[in-house]
């Protein structure tokens, strides 16, 4: 009977009218940005579907690899998004946040969104690579320089996200995260060189044997290109949505208590009223 009172408060921003409670209304997405988001989303969906169709049914199997070659339409594209697009964007926007003239929470949220989406793509890179590696190289994982670098990047990404989860003032969190992103970014070339030397000095021939070079058929080249474009669009769409969610999260962080208070007060019909009679009776 009292479960209604002990349950965690569910917050429905529209249920509380902003005018008489003093709660800042949630930021509203403009029509233009809504349209942009939708158009990119639809394009990403169509592009991905077309890539899947072309990759699985239209293009021929490879002379040496057979159907395994179809991974080429996904794997490099995913890796491109994770390793260059997402991480590069995160590094650049972190730098722009730290630069006093361009300091704005926009860059901080953009960096956070890029890293989060980048982690998803990074994991997809490692998983699709492993699935490809097992039948072609005979192992799920090889300590090849590029694989090692990808794994180190994933750990650096995850550290950044762990730091962001710590509650703090938005400005403090933004600064701290931007520094961590910056220090990770300047580490990347150093890790790149060291894992390259590490591997080449370690074993004479690298696992990625030159026999893997593909003879690209006309339709294969187009599908490969389409895959890159489609996955880039998927990244942009996820980035836009994540950024919007980030804005809403910040709004909720700032207004959570006010909202909960307003909701409680509206239940009792006044600032000092208890829970409304009908709610207790109804349960």
């Amino acid at each position, binding site marked *: 009977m009292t479960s209604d009172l002990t349950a965690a408060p569910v917050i429905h921003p529209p249920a509380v009218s902003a005018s008489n409670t003093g709660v800042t209304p949630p930021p509203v997405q403009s029509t233009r940005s809504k349209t942009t988001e939708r158009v990119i989303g639809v394009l990403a969906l169509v592009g991905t579907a077309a890539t899947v169709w072309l990759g699985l049914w239209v293009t021929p199997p490879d002379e040496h690899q057979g159907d395994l070659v179809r991974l080429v339409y996904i794997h490099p594209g995913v890796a491109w998004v994770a390793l260059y697009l997402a991480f590069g964007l995160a590094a650049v926007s972190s730098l722009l946040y730290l630069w006093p003239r361009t300091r704005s929470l926009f860059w901080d949220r953009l960096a956070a969104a890029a890293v989060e989406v980048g982690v998803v793509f990074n994991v997809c890179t490692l998983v699709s690579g492993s699935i490809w590696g097992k039948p072609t190289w005979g192992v799920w994982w090889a300590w090849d320089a590029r694989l090692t670098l990808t794994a180190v990047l994933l750990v650096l990404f995850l*550290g950044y996200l762990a730091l962001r989860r710590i509650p703090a003032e938005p400005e403090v969190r933004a600064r701290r995260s931007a520094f961590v992103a910056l220090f990770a970014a300047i580490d990347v070339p150093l890790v790149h060189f060291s894992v390259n*030397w590490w591997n080449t000095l370690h074993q004479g021939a690298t696992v990625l044997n030159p026999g893997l070079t593909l003879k690209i058929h006309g339709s294969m080249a187009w599908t490969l290109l389409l895959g890159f474009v489609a996955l880039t669009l998927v990244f942009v769409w996820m980035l836009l949505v994540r950024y919007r969610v980030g804005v809403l999260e910040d709004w909720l962080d700032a207004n959570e208590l006010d909202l909960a208070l307003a909701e409680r007060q509206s239940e009792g019909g006044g600032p000092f009223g208890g829970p409304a009679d009908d709610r207790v009776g109804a349960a």
Partner: protein
Amino acid sequence: MWRDAALIAGKDLRIEGRSRVALSQVAPFGIVALVLFAFALGPDRQVMAKGAPGLFWVAVLFCTVLAIQRSVSVESSDGASDGLRLSGIDPAGLYLGKAVAVAAQLIVLEALLAAGVVLLYGARIAVPWMIVVSCVLGTIGLAATGTLYGALSSGLRVRETLLPFLLLPIAVPVLLAGTRIWQAAMAGGTPSSGMAWLRLLLVFDVVYLAAGVVLFGPIQETA
């Protein structure tokens, strides 16, 4: 800047001299790690000697995390960090001083661990100067990055768990370079590949020291 750095380093080393935390806790921990590695690899001394370079550097990394935690916690009580900022000490000097103090403790620790590796694992060192140079350069790099991340995480309640997670992946180049230089020094034959790794360590040191000198002031404001 240099005078401030000397002051801060002197202060931290004096605290260590009186509390003996690094000597009585961190150093024994390093030895314990070496013994545990030996248990993990079995009693075959050939395997241990082969793995000695990597095991040495992994032990050093773990000890670095502890030394940095200690270096941060010294400033965390009694409003010590606020006092330091109020005292008008140059942030770059503060950074260098903290890093120098950590590096000095790590060097002593590494001497101990190196002796342990030679005695316990039967590692033979053919080119001792390469070992010394790699330890000095590696230690500077670890102290430089560690002090930066220590300052970044200093105000956080989850510092103990977050610091290793952030710091250890950054230190991957130091681990790889240190291990390769030790292998070259133990083999004795080809110092040319060792030289490339020494240059990489030098670049790592310069990059992070420069970042720390420039950015330590703004980083302090995030704590």
